C-alpha cells in the first residue's frame, strides 16, 4: 500500500510517519545540495503520488527563482527562471504561503478566452507580456510550498499533475513538514558550503601570508648574513692588533658586564660589538643598535627610562625592552647630553644590581657602548658623566685604526673583492700587485670602511679578472668648495675637523664642518649662526697667534664649513695629558702668546668665551718652536651684544671647567676679563695637570666657579711655581672680575715681570719637541691630536 492510498487512514498515517522519519534521517545525513534536492522530491512523490516536481531556489538578488532540481522532466527545466510574483511558484515566493490549485488548466482556459475577447475587441494595449513559467505541460493540479528556514525564504517546491487532484488539510501539514526539513537541510548545506569556502579563502590567505612572511624571513636572513659579513670584514687579519682585539672580544663575550668600545670612525666598533654579542650566551637574542647622536631628549628618556622602570603590558616597547635577552649597542655615547648620560649610568647600575641578585628580571639587557673619542678628556672637561665613565672603564676595548694594522690590508682587500664580486656577479679573482702596494701605502683615514668603499667602487668599474685600483680613488675625498676632505682629524661639540687639500694649490688645510645630524631646525639655525660668526670674526683677526682663516661657505648638502691653516703640533690639553705639567717658564711664554691673540680680539670688542687648553694649540712654525695659536672663536661675542644672540637657546656657551662665574650666572655684560678667568684656568691646567675644580657634572662645576675659592697651583704640585705666577693665576681666577687683571695686555705685562719669564728659550723648546714629538717637526704628526 502506498502512502497515497486513502483506503486505510491508519495504515496511511503509519506509513507517512515512517516516511517522514526516513526523510528526516536521510536529509540531515548529507551536506550535499544535490542529494538534498533528490531526497526532497522523491519524498513528495512517495507521499502524494506526484510524478513531477520542481525545486526552485531564490537567487542572490532575491528577485527570481531558479530551477535547481526536477523530477519527471528529464532535466529540461533545470536552470529555468521565474520572477518572484509571477506564476504559481512566483506567487508562493512573494506571499511566502502554500498554494494549491486543482483546476489550473480550466482557469487558464478561461483566462485565455478573456484575453482573446479583449484582443478581438481592440483592448490589446491593456494586456501585458506573458511569461513562460517552468512547469508541466497540461498541468491540472499544482501545489507549491515555500521553503522557509528561520523565517528566511530559500526557495519553492512545486509538485504538479496532469490530473485533477485535491489535498486535505493533513496533506498540507505533511507537505509543510517536508518543506521545512528540506529548507533547513538546504540552509545547513549552504552554511557549510559558505564555511568551506571561507575556510578555503582563509587557507589561501594563510598560504599567501606564509609566503609573504617566508619572503620577509628570507630577506631578514639576507640582512643578517649581510650584517655578519660586515662583522666579519673589519675583524679579519692576523696582525697583533687584530689578534689582541679578538682576544679582548672573547674575554668580554664571557661575561654580561657593559663594555666601552673606543675606536676611530670606520675602524669596526659595530663589528666588535656584534662579535661580542655573537660569541656571548646572548647570541640567540636580539642585537639592537642605537645611534645616540640621533636620539632626541624624549627618545633617550624613554629608552633609558624603561631600563629603570619596565614597561607595563600593552605599552609601546622601547629599544631597551626589545633587547631583552640580547644586547643593546649604544653608538656615539659621547654625543649624548650629559643629563641623559646620567640615566645610562643609572640603568647600568640597576642591571648590575639585578644580575647580582640572581633573580630573573626584565628587560635583561647587556649594554655595549661605542665612542669615537677618548672619554677621559670629555670627563675632565665635564662633558661626560664621571660615574658612567668609571662604570664603563671596568671593561674597555680599543679598536685599532687600519693604519695601526697595515699587514691586514691585503686580506681585508681580498675579502671585500670576493664579497662584492659575488654580489655583483662579476668574475674578479685578485688584486693587481701594484694596486695592492698602493692600498698598503695609503693612510686610510676612513679606516676599514673607506677600504671597503674603495674596493666596492673598483669592483663596479672593473673589466677583468684582476682588479686595478685607481690612485685617484684614494685621494678623492669629499669636495667642499675648492678643498677635498682627506681624513677626519677631530670631532667636537660643534662639529668635525678634517684634513683638507686645496684642489689646485695642493695646500693642506684644516676644514671644520658643523654637525647638524640629530639637531632640530631651530638648533641647527643657531649652530650655523654661531659657526658663521666664528668664521667672520676669525677672518678679521690678524694676530699671528690667532688661527688663520682661508675660506668658509656652505656645501651643496647644506653643511657649513670653514677652512683654516693646518697646524702641526698639539693642543695644550693633549700635551699636558701626555707629558704632564709644564715648567712655569714655559707656561709663562705660552700664556703671553695667548694674551697677544686676545689683545687684538678684545681691542675689537670681541670676547672669545671658550678659552681652554684644547683651544690653545702649540705648533712649530718655521724656526719658532712652541708657537701658540688660539683656536675656535665659535662662541665669540662682542661686548655690545646680548648673550642670547650667540648662544644656543637654553644652553650656556663655553666649556664648564673653564667658565668665568659671570658666564655661569648668565650675566648680560661680559667683557674681556671672562677670557682672562678662562686663561687662568688653562694656566692652572698647564702648571698642575689638574682642573681648578673637580665635579661629577656640569652643575657641580658651575657651583664651584661661583662659590669655591681655588687653591694656589703651588699647593697642588711639587714642581716649583714662582710666587708671582701663583698670585697672578689666582688673580685671574678671582670671582669678581674687578679683582682680575684689567686686560690681556696687563696680564701679558705681569707675566713678563715674573722672574723666570725668560728662562724658556728657543733652544729648550726645540730640544723638547725633538725629544718628545719629532714627528711634529717632520710635519707627519696628526695636526691636532685632540679636540675640545
Amino acid at each position, binding site marked *: 500500500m502506498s502512502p497515497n492510498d486513502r483506503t486505510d487512514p491508519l495504515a496511511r498515517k503509519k506509513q507517512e510517519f515512517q516516511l517522514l522519519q526516513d526523510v528526516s534521517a536521510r536529509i540531515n545525513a548529507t551536506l550535499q545540495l544535490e542529494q538534498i534536492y533528490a531526497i526532497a522530491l522523491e519524498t513528495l512523490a512517495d507521499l502524494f503520488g506526484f510524478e513531477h516536481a520542481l525545486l526552485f531556489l531564490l537567487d542572490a538578488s532575491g528577485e527570481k527563482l531558479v530551477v535547481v532540481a526536477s523530477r519527471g522532466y528529464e532535466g529540461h527545466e533545470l536552470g529555468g527562471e521565474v520572477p518572484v510574483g509571477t506564476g504559481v511558484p512566483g506567487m508562493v515566493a512573494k506571499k511566502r504561503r502554500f498554494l494549491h490549485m486543482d483546476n489550473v488548466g*480550466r482557469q487558464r482556459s478561461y483566462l485565455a478566452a478573456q484575453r482573446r475577447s479583449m484582443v478581438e475587441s481592440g483592448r490589446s494595449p491593456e494586456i501585458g507580456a506573458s*511569461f513562460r*513559467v517552468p512547469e508541466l505541460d497540461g498541468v491540472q493540479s499544482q501545489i507549491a510550498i515555500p521553503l522557509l528556514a528561520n523565517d528566511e525564504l530559500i526557495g519553492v517546491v512545486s509538485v504538479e499533475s496532469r490530473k485533477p487532484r485535491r489535498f486535505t488539510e493533513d496533506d498540507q501539514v505533511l507537505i509543510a513538514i517536508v518543506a521545512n526539513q528540506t529548507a533547513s537541510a538546504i540552509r545547513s548545506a549552504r552554511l557549510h558550503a559558505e564555511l568551506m569556502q571561507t575556510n578555503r579563502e582563509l587557507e589561501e590567505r594563510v598560504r599567501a601570508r606564509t609566503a609573504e612572511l617566508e619572503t620577509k624571513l628570507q630577506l631578514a636572513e639576507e640582512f643578517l648574513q649581510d650584517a655578519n659579513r660586515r662583522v666579519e670584514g673589519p675583524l679579519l687579519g692576523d696582525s697583533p692588533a687584530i689578534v689582541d682585539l679578538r682576544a679582548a672580544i672573547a674575554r668580554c663575550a664571557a661575561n654580561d658586564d657593559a663594555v666601552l668600545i673606543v675606536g676611530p670612525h670606520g675602524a669596526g666598533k659595530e663589528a666588535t660589538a656584534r662579535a661580542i654579542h655573537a660569541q656571548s650566551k646572548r647570541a640567540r637574542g636580539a642585537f639592537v643598535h642605537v645611534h645616540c647622536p640621533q636620539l632626541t631628549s624624549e627618545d633617550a628618556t624613554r629608552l633609558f627610562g624603561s631600563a629603570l622602570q619596565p614597561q607595563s603590558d600593552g605599552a609601546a616597547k622601547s629599544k631597551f625592552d626589545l633587547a631583552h635577552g640580547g644586547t643593546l649597542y649604544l653608538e656615539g655615547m659621547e654625543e649624548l647630553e650629559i643629563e641623559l648620560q646620567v640615566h645610562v649610568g643609572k640603568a647600568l647600575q640597576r642591571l648590575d644590581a639585578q644580575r647580582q641578585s640572581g633573580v630573573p628580571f626584565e628587560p635583561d639587557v647587556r649594554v655595549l657602548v661605542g665612542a669615537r673619542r677618548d672619554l677621559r678628556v670629555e670627563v675632565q672637561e665635564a662633558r661626560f658623566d664621571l660615574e658612567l665613565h668609571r662604570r664603563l672603564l671596568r671593561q674597555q676595548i680599543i679598536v685599532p685604526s687600519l693604519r695601526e694594522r697595515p699587514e691586514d690590508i691585503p686580506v681585508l682587500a681580498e675579502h671585500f673583492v670576493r664579497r662584492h664580486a659575488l654580489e655583483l656577479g662579476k668574475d674578479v679573482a685578485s688584486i693587481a700587485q701594484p694596486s695592492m702596494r698602493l692600498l698598503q701605502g695609503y693612510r686610510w683615514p676612513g679606516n676599514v670602511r673607506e677600504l671597503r668603499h674603495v674596493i666596492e667602487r673598483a669592483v663596479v668599474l672593473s673589466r677583468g679578472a684582476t682588479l686595478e685600483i685607481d690612485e685617484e680613488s684614494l685621494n678623492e675625498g669629499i669636495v667642499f668648495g675648492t678643498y677635498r676632505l682627506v681624513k677626519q682629524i677631530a670631532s667636537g661639540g660643534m662639529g668635525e675637523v678634517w684634513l683638507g687639500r686645496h684642489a689646485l694649490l695642493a695646500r693642506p688645510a684644516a676644514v671644520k664642518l658643523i654637525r647638524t645630524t640629530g639637531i632640530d631646525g631651530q638648533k641647527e639655525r643657531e649652530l650655523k649662526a654661531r659657526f658663521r660668526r666664528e668664521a667672520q670674526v676669525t677672518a678679521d683677526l690678524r694676530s699671528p697667534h690667532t688661527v688663520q682663516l682661508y675660506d668658509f661657505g656652505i656645501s651643496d648638502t647644506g653643511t657649513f664649513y670653514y677652512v683654516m691653516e693646518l697646524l702641526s703640533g698639539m693642543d695644550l690639553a693633549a700635551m699636558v695629558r701626555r707629558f704632564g705639567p709644564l715648567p712655569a717658564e714655559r707656561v709663562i711664554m705660552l700664556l703671553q702668546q695667548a694674551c697677544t691673540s686676545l689683545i687684538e680680539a678684545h681691542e675689537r670688542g670681541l670676547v672669545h668665551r671658550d678659552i681652554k687648553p684644547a683651544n690653545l694649540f702649540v705648533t712649530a712654525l718655521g724656526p719658532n718652536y712652541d708657537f701658540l695659536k688660539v683656536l675656535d672663536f665659535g662662541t665669540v661675542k662682542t661686548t655690545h651684544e646680548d648673550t642670547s644672540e650667540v648662544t644656543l637657546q637654553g644652553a650656556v656657551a663655553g666649556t664648564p671647567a673653564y667658565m668665568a662665574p659671570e658666564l655661569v650666572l648668565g650675566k648680560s655684560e661680559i667683557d674681556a676679563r671672562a677670557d682672562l678667568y678662562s686663561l687662568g684656568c688653562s694656566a692652572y691646567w698647564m702648571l698642575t695637570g689638574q682642573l681648578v675644580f673637580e665635579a661629577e657634572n656640569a652643575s657641580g662645576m658651575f657651583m664651584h666657579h661661583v662659590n669655591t675659592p681655588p687653591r694656589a697651583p703651588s699647593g697642588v704640585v711639587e714642581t716649583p711655581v714662582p710666587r708671582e705666577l701663583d698670585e697672578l693665576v689666582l688673580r685671574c681666577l678671582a670671582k669678581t672680575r674687578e679683582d682680575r687683571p684689567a686686560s690681556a695686555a696687563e696680564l701679558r705685562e705681569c707675566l713678563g715681570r715674573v722672574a723666570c719669564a725668560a728662562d724658556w728659550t728657543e733652544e729648550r723648546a726645540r730640544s723638547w719637541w725633538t725629544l718628545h714629538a719629532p714627528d711634529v717637526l717632520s710635519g707627519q704628526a696628526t695636526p691636532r691630536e685632540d679636540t675640545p
Partner: protein
Amino acid sequence: MTTVQMPEAVKPVLNNGIPAILVTCSAEGVPNTTILSQVYWVDEGHVALSFQFFNKTVRNVRENPYASLCVMDLEGYADWVLQIRYDHSETEGPIFDEMEMQIEAIASASGMSGIFVLRAADIYSVESIRKIDGRPSARV
C-alpha cells in the same frame, strides 16, 4: 431568511474552474446575468464571489441583495442552483488573500495582472440549494 447548510458534495464543484452563472436583479426588477470564473467555499452556509469588474452586478446587489447562482458539475452531469443573499465584502483577510493569490498566480503569467484585479471578496449566505441532475448547463 434562514441560511441552509450546503452538502459536502457541492464543495468540489464550486471552484472547479468551470465558469458559473450569476443572476442578479435591480430594484426596478430588471435582471442581469454574468459569468464568474471562481466561486469559493467559505463554510457550509457561505460562498465567496470575486468582485473584479462586474459593475452592473455590483450595482444590482447593492440595491437588491438576492441573487441566483448556478454551478456546473461536468463529471457528475448535473447543475447546482443556489439562492444566495449578499452579506458583506472583504478587502483583506484569509479569504481575500487566498482568492487574490489564485487569481494573480494565473493572471501574472499571461499578462492579465492589470486586468484581473481582485477588488473585494463578496460574501454571500446560501438560502437554498438545489441539485438538478442530468442537466449540465455547460452543454448549452
